[in-house]
């Protein structure tokens, strides 16, 4: 049995919206194992980004618990959270992903720099990873010189290079055309499986689910459905749900 890397227990996040409390995340519980790629889907406003922010230690929950690698997020101080983010978590964001004044290679290496592990071996690993993502001739390109798909792939490399426990991706395909989007998610899934990370991808595009191992569906802050089997997932990805 694969170990549990991420565990969410009865998580609640309440916002006060126009004077009334709103549970953006409403009693959510689930687990993600190493080597597992999970999609988090749901209509706009269903609480996906809020949930991801809490998992990323960027937002504190109202109640419930999150464990990453067995560490309880709510027990951590701010500097511990910063350290957790740079060592145990990998990120890709919807847009504005990369540091604009660093090249593709420097963006990826920056994660290693932050962790103090930028040595010869790791530099080589970064290059190999970028090559694996089809970017071997863009190493020295700045983000502005790359297409959206290329930038997203650099972000994926950055999210994986420091061997995080959990990889969180918020709408990684939002700015890509369909073909690029499939490519990016496919590579992402492959890397997560190979490196035994726990991956969570937020997406509104159900077609992207065909590469994941499990789909969590949210609505109004609640987990309303979970697709576990290949058949269920493929059907969902084809839009037969």
């Amino acid at each position: 049995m694969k170990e549990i890397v991420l565990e969410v227990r009865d998580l609640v996040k309440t916002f006060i919206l126009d004077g009334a409390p709103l549970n953006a995340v409403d009693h959510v519980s689930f687990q993600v194992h190493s080597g597992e790629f999970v999609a988090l889907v749901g209509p706009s406003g269903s609480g996906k980004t809020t949930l991801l922010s809490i998992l990323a230690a960027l937002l504190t929950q109202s109640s419930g618990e999150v464990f990453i690698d067995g560490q309880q997020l709510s027990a951590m101080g701010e500097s511990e959270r910063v350290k957790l983010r740079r060592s145990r978590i990998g990120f890709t964001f919807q847009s504005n992903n990369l540091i604009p004044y660093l090249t593709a290679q420097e963006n990826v290496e920056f994660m290693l720099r932050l962790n103090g592990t930028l040595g010869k071996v790791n530099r080589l690993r970064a290059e190999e990873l970028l090559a694996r993502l089809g970017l071997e001739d863009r190493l020295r390109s700045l983000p502005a010189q790359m297409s959206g798909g290329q930038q997203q792939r650099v972000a994926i490399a950055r999210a994986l290079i420091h061997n995080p426990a959990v990889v969180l991706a918020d709408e990684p395909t939002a700015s890509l055309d369909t073909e690029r989007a499939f490519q990016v998610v496919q590579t992402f899934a492959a890397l997560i499986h190979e490196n035994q990370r726990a991956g969570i991808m937020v997406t509104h595009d159900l077609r992207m689910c065909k590469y994941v191992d499990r789909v969590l569906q949210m609505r109004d802050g609640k987990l309303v459905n979970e697709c576990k089997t290949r058949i269920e997932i493929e059907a969902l990805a084809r839009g037969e749900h």
Partner: protein
Amino acid sequence: MRALSIATYLALKEVWRGRGRFLLVSLVIALITLLVLFIAALGEGLANGNRQYVSNLNAQLIVFLQKSDTNISSSQLQVDTVRQIRRVDGVAAAGPIYTSSTEIEANKSPLKVSLLAAEPGQPGLPPVIAGRVFHTGDSGEAVIDQNVALRSGFQVGDEMTIRSTQGGTDEFFYLRVVGLTSNQSYFFQPTIFTSAATWEKVRPQSAADLKDDTPYPNIIAVQLADPKQIQSMEMQLLTKVPNIEVADIPTTINAIPGYSAQQGTVQTQGVFTLLIGVLVIGGFFQIQILQKVPQIGVLKAIGSSNGTVGASAVIQIIIVTAIGVGIGGGLTYLFSLGFPPTIPLVFNGTSSLFAVVALLLIGPIGGLVSVIYAVRIEPLKALRLQ
């Protein structure tokens, strides 16, 4: 320590990859530097032109007539005051100084000069660097400042013509140049020195003055046996000698008519130029930070600390400011090489250094708000600001 090295790395990369933009700001700072350094040099030059003679006096105290408010031109002492002063214990030497101003007929155009008289061997007469000291009595001889020689063309051995108003009519006198001295500007004019008797004859006088042929000194420069005893000797002189007022050299300089007002004006200009610099830099970096909110959010979200982000912003500002001040300093140096000696610009170490330090501070001060802003950006912005 790793945070600081990462901050430096980020700052250097950002400045280098955006060098066109940052160079532009540096150039603005360079121009401000040029302006501030020139204002400082002009202030120093003007001050010098005003006070040079007084600050180079080989004396610690200046004696004025009582109630003259330490104003040199409104002070006129009695002839025997100098003897009374010399009798006071602790006085090493005392030299009467007679001041006036006149015009010499130079080959090109008339040159306004300060006409001073002093006694050879006493404080008040600066060292002669070429030729000899004038003879006492009405010798008709003069020692002139190098600046007078430079501007008028007169050399040792030449005879120069002086135009001076005597009770309403212009008269001409002849003085023989017998020696040269240097750095003796007074009241914005280069100086010529004569004996008291010659001074009394050739200085411009009103009709009333003409009746009396005795030269009265305006002030007396007092050299102390122990130069540290300024305060106690001031008291001594006041009790032993009647009808006088005593001031040290800095007080005397500040009381030179127009001196404080002029320095105040120049300093105000300098401060305002620096303020403009603060606003320019502050504006630039604030706009830049506002544009950078998402990317700073990402930096923090992936695990950069607030300290790293803040330090990187500070380092960047310091780099841009230092480059600007460096370029500005270089430009100022190049320009100063091409300036004629008649323009009173003095790049003296202290005031220029002071200006440079102030200039280096305007970056961090101007950028302070933007740095605080950067530190406060929430990492959540990486996810929410799209």
